[in-house]
């Protein structure tokens, strides 16, 4: 097991009201090379879990262990290693990339911070390899984020995270801001990277169809509680929890016959 979250609780201040508890004893674990999906509606706590497991915020109770490191109390070399091996891709590639840095500087920044490649030439070579790998043209490395399209920017964000060879990649809604025709490119890229690099991916999303495509294991959250967990086949084939069932039933399907049948069914239910 690569990372284990054990019964974490997290509250946010809501002054003058008492703090609101957003995570209630959440436990989950991630293995090498596994793609885990965290799904739930807004307010379910899925992004808070992502923040906790990146050590961007600390839960008040419970523990997070990564490869022998106690993440919540880690310091010094342990924390540096954790920060190098667990990387993040954010939702909005328009907001997450510094507009004053070139693609080369953005992608190479991690190498500099973690002192992984010494010398500008070595870094440049690594950046070029990485750009090639995520489907960008290395000739574009001197360009700024604004001259890339949304999908290309998300490729930069992915290259930036992967260049320092992390073992876990946490993606918080990485395709939600992208156009439909480009979304598929990024999903395929993440899937390729996961297989090629034996990368573990924690995929936080509200779009269950995307999660079904990418993740072998799924955790369903509702109001800060894990209501169901299982393999793709279990969750999508035979959901046990009523909330999971309701969530799945509401996902729109691009097929007019199915859409209409479901609407008719709902209408029949409400009039009964």
């Amino acid at each position, binding site marked *: 097991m690569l990372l284990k979250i054990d019964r974490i609780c997290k509250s946010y201040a809501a002054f003058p009201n008492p703090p609101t508890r957003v995570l209630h004893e959440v436990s989950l674990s991630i293995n090498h090379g596994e793609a885990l999906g965290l799904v739930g509606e807004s307010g379910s706590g899925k992004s808070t879990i992502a923040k906790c497991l990146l050590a961007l915020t600390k839960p008040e109770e419970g523990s997070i262990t990564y490869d022998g490191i106690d993440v919540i109390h880690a310091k010094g070399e342990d924390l540096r290693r954790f920060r190098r091996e667990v990387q993040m891709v954010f939702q909005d590639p328009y907001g997450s990339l510094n507009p004053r840095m070139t693609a080369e500087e953005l992608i190479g920044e991690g190498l500099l911070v973690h002192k992984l490649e010494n010398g500008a030439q070595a870094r440049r070579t690594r950046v070029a390899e990485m750009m090639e790998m995520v489907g960008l043209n290395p000739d574009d490395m001197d360009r700024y984020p604004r001259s890339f399209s949304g999908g*290309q920017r998300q490729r930069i964000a992915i290259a930036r995270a992967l260049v320092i060879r992390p073992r876990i990649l946490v993606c918080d809604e990485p395709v939600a801001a992208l*156009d*439909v*025709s480009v979304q598929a490119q990024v999903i395929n890229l993440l899937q390729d990277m996961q297989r090629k690099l034996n990368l573990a991916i924690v995929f936080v999303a509200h779009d269950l169809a995307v999660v079904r495509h990418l993740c072998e294991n799924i955790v369903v959250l509702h109001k800060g509680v894990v209501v169901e967990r299982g393999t793709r086949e279990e969750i*999508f084939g035979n959901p046990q929890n009523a909330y999971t069932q309701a*969530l799945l039933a509401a996902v729109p399907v*691009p097929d007019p016959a199915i859409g209409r049948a479901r609407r008719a069914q709902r209408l029949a239910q409400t009039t009964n």
Partner: protein
Amino acid sequence: MQIVHPMPAMPEPTPKYAPLVTTSGLTVDMPLGRDGNSVRIVDNIDFSIGVGERVALVGESGSGKSLTARALMRLDRLARLSGRIDFDGQDLLKLSEREMTRYRGSAIAMVFQDPMSFLDPLMTIGDQVAETLRIRGVGKAEARKRALAVLDELGVDRAAERLDAYPHEFSGGMRQRVVLAMALVGEPRLLIADEPTTALDVRVQDQVLDLLDDVSARRGLAVLFITHDLGVVAGFAERVMVMYSGRIVEDGEVEQVFAHPRHPYTRGLIKAVPRIDQDLHKLYAIPGAPPPPLARPSGCPFHPRCSESFDRCVSELPAVLNVGGERVACHLHDPLRV
């Protein structure tokens, strides 16, 4: 009144419906800076929406779908509109600004994506819903009564008590109902819904769609539903129009378009959507990205991303063709294709 159009390949819409709105050669240019330059966002489009018909307008960001819808209400003062928009026999582009104001809200109304930024946080729900009527000179008590009736119709619980509540006291789904009530209180005949469910969770989205469905059927209200979500289109609309780079590339009945999409872009879009009811090894991805309006490719704007393009696609903009009761703008469907 029957409107005669000089344009070829007008939609043969759905004879089920009498036409309510018909555009011909609708073009939207947005000015760039002060030196008189402009960029063409919507390029010469023709479409028709029938009385009580539910039509989806699908496109990616920058395709011009929102500006097309906003043009129907002449919402953008800076936009230069040309062509015709016939609403119930009246060309809306010929009206003065003052005359247009009478159409907004009472003939055509609009709901937007984010209900929170659309509602005034310092005004009660009742006052906001009644405002449209008050502007039209309806008395205070009468306006309040009608606001209450609409909120009731839209399933806002205990509407009478909540007329004096403020937007922050409502959940996301309820706020979207309030916004919908504001649009419907003037009894419009066409409702334009611009991504009304995009910011909502799936279960709430379903409720709002059911509600729209219900209201549209009960009132004989035509709905133009703007979205990028093909799943929503399939469940809600009867007809779908696909926009790409400022033009309508395909327009047909939902069943037909989803079962046999004719334009390669539509085909790609449908294949690129991950589905909850299917397992696929790899998703189909359309290569490249939609072109920005200032750098449209020559010929068919989709040709650099199209796997079936040939010489003619590079040089010549495809005309809109009638093919099997559907409209499609693609050289592949030209019977005289060489």
